[in-house]
């Protein structure tokens, strides 16, 4: 693929990034110039800005039929970048809406600013086509997220969360960078789309190459929270401000998968046999560990943390299938998962605002206290469990179908067994919500407007993706074509 000289369309390709930078600057400026009263509206500015950027990207950012490397091969303007940008912007916008009622963060300019910068990093992750750009993008994402995870300075758990995330992140990122440097050292090439040929030409021994791959996978596994680099997840998710947990478990994970899929399929098609075997093992371990550990959780954020680990395992099935439909099912699964998980966290945040608790036991009586909110949680949990007519069901069917199509029937069965375990703990939450009584049943749970918008958007999306999944699947299939 030839690298074109600068052309105006390249600016359109990075339109979301440019606008995100403008938005971040605007937020910092408003924060510095405005008084305390003005700061209350920062969340609104951020979420509205992100929503507008989302619309602008949808309107103008669509890639042409021809995939092109731009800016000297640093970025690639293609469907996978486009789709993931939409997904990331959606997640960021909803996260901002969900932050507006959380006392510790709602009126802090640097909070929203960092969130937007992290989103900027993620959108670059989705489109990076060069090892250097990729590393920069990952760090641009991670550093604001470390800060955000530890944002509540007065809270020991939040501080621990930020610290843990930083230490694990820095370490795995260093290992990954070492892998990148070895790749460059052996081939003299940093562009992802030329590395495959260069690797072929360099005649590296497969063992060495596998070792390099392993180093790189460490970094990626950390990003998507796959076993055995999942240890940080529960503690970080529990301690971080809940909207940030929502953001980490959706956008950050999705961006990680975008990178993982792109690098694996672009750079290492030559040894696909060995990395799919490794990732199949990782997938099984991730699903199983995530689901089994989730069984014992008493805190809803920790439960969702382990559940998010498990879901990373299902997503990996799509990648391991190593087919166009497999990649499409992966994209579709992420789409369904992001929307559903945001919904779940929206309910968690709302409940914590009025009840001040994240313990599952305290959700008792929620169905009497706030029937609408309970119903939203029902939708979220059942979608995560994979029940129709919700998004999670079709998503699971597609990844299992991809596995069967590629002859990985055993992997589909492992997925099925895991889905059963998953169903158990999601039902346990619903049981508490619907069955148990508490003395707080007469206290209503107020739902501010921004939350209502987020809730309704997500519920509608979960239902739409679940029932009319044709167009969404078509989108995912189109996206997948740019990976092969």
């Amino acid at each position: 693929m030839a690298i074109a000289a600068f052309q105006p369309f390249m600016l359109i390709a990075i339109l979301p990034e440019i606008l995100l930078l403008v938005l971040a600057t605007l937020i910092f400026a408003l924060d510095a110039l405005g008084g305390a009263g003005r700061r209350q509206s920062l969340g609104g500015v951020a979420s509205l800005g992100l929503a507008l950027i989302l619309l602008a990207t949808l309107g103008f950012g669509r890639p042409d039929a021809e995939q092109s490397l731009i800016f000297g091969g640093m970025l690639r303007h293609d469907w996978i970048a486009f789709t993931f940008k939409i997904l990331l912007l959606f997640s960021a916008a909803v996260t901002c809406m969900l932050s507006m009622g959380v006392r510790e963060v709602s009126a802090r300019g640097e909070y929203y600013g960092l969130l937007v910068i992290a989103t900027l990093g993620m959108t670059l992750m989705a489109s990076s086509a060069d090892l250097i750009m990729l590393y920069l993008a990952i760090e641009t994402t991670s550093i604001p997220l470390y800060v955000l995870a530890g944002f509540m300075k007065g809270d020991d758990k939040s501080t621990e969360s930020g610290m843990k995330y930083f230490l694990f992140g820095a370490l795995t990122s260093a290992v990954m960078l070492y892998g990148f440097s070895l790749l460059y050292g052996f081939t003299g090439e940093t562009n992802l789309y030329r590395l495959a040929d260069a690797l072929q030409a360099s005649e590296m021994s497969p063992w060495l190459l596998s070792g390099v791959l392993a180093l790189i996978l460490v970094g990626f596994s950390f990003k998507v929270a796959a076993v055995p680099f999942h240890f940080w997840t529960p503690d970080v998710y529990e301690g971080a401000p809940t909207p940030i947990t929502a953001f980490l478990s959706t956008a950050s994970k999705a961006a990680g998968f975008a990178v993982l899929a792109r690098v694996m399929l672009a750079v290492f098609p030559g040894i696909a046999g060995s990395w799919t075997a490794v990732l199949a093992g990782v997938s099984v371990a991730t699903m199983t560990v995530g689901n089994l550990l989730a069984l014992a959780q008493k805190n809803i954020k920790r439960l969702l943390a382990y559940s998010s680990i498990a879901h990373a395992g299902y997503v990996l099935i799509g990648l391991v299938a190593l087919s166009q439909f497999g990649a499409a099912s992966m994209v579709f699964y992420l789409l369904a998962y992001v929307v559903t998980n945001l919904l779940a966290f929206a309910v968690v945040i709302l409940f914590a605002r009025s009840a001040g608790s994240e313990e599952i036991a305290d959700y008792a009586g929620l169905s009497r206290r706030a029937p609408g909110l309970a119903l939203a949680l029902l939708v979220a949990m059942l979608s995560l469990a994979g029940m129709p007519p919700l998004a999670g069901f079709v998503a699971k069917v597609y990844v299992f179908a991809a596995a069967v199509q590629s002859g990985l029937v055993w992997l589909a069965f492992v997925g099925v067994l895991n889905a059963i375990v998953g169903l158990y703990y999601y039902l346990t939450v619903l049981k508490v919500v619907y069955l148990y009584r508490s003395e707080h049943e007469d206290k209503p749970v107020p739902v501010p407007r921004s939350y209502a918008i987020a809730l309704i958007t997500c519920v509608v999306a979960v239902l739409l993706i679940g029932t009319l999944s044709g167009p969404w699947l078509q989108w995912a299939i189109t996206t997948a074509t740019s990976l092969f």
Partner: protein
Amino acid sequence: MDFPLLTVIVFTPIVSGLLILLIPGERKTEIRIAALAAATFALLLSLGAYIIYDRSLGGYQFVQIFTWIPQLGISYHVGVDGMSLPLVLLTGIVIFTGVLISWGIDDRPREFFAFLFVLASGVFGVFVSLDLFQLFFFYEIAVFPMYLLIAIWGWQVTREYAAMKLTLYLFIGSLVALVGGLAMYYTSGLGTFDLLALQEAGFSTAFQRLWFPFVFFGFAVLGGIFPFHNWSPDGHVAAPTAVSMFHAGVLMKLGAFAALRVGFMLLPEGARFWSPLILGLATVNVVYGAFIAMVQTDFKYVIGFSSVSHMGLVMLGFATLNREGLTGAGLQMFSHGVMTALFFAVVGVVYDRAHTRDIPKLGGFSKVMPLVAVAFIVGGLASMGMPGFSGFIAEFPIFMGLWKAQPVVALIAALGIVITAAYIMRVVGRVFFGKMPAEMEGHISRETALDRIALGVLAGILILVGVVPSVMAPLVASGADAVVRLLGGA
């Protein structure tokens, strides 16, 4: 047919359920009336379909097809034939009588009826599905609300355990079958989930033999086949009355029906290969279920195990692979559905008043509620297979088919009928006759008018089908013929 009758039938309950959710929760009477109206509408529609169906034409009727997910060849495809039409009617009957029996539910009736209607839509959806994906879609919709219905409104002692056990059993079964379905989809190479197309796919013998057990047992779990029947009595007992009726009356048919539609009809060679095993297991169902029912002291467990026993007869009918057996199985699904709904309704009526289901502590109920006793006896006679009741019409062909296929199995399974007679007699004698315990004397009120309507409808149908079998038997036989054709004669 221009009017999308089946689509309206499928979506009536779920739409009414959502509308009911909009009624303020404290206006309980309005909620109940709305639920009854919706259930009546669903019953009338399914009765309408039953009557309009052109018996001289046979085959699938009221067919509608839309593209749903074109990328995978999934469509929304509905239609009914002689096998599924009685089950659609059955669902209509059970939802109607179930709402009547549930009139007294006082804890959040809004949510109760909403979940019950979601369940009903799922059930209707499976019975009319002609697309494999769609079938799974509705199947799961039917399985899930069960959990909340049992866990929230069920019998306090065992509800959490039973609800979870049931849901996990059924979910695992359906997902295993789903993997089988996906294997069929990819192996056929047709790129479609359409059942009618997959029927003609001509899977290799080895493929059919390999995958048949996954698909069959995946679904048959819900049909209560031994040794995966364990969830069912626990679930029935823990569930509130209407849910038990639905559960034993309709949901178990869902499993049997899906096992037939997907297992037997798509993988006929696999069915032939595995039918001896199914015959064996189903015989265990029939005999063992009846024996266990015999020794229960809990009224509801007796009925729960009787369902296990009777569903065994359905599976036996399938496994004969011949016209008589399949016709009998189809009739038995309908007959058992009505009969067991009646049984559970009676158990509910008795328990609501006596507050115990312990058979030794009951007695003399026929004096207070003679009509309930009559209804129960009608159900009992049907379940023993007495001529003049629907059970005879159903069980006789099954045994005829069995005799043709495996005379030994017919002899052993006939034992089940004898034991059935014994435990039904025992329950009738202990609960309805004899002397009422002193502490209950004077505290037992009569059944309500709504209960009477519900029981009357159910008992009336059992007698009607028994006395005038032509209202149903030829229809089911035409459905059975279609299955036999796929199974390649016999």
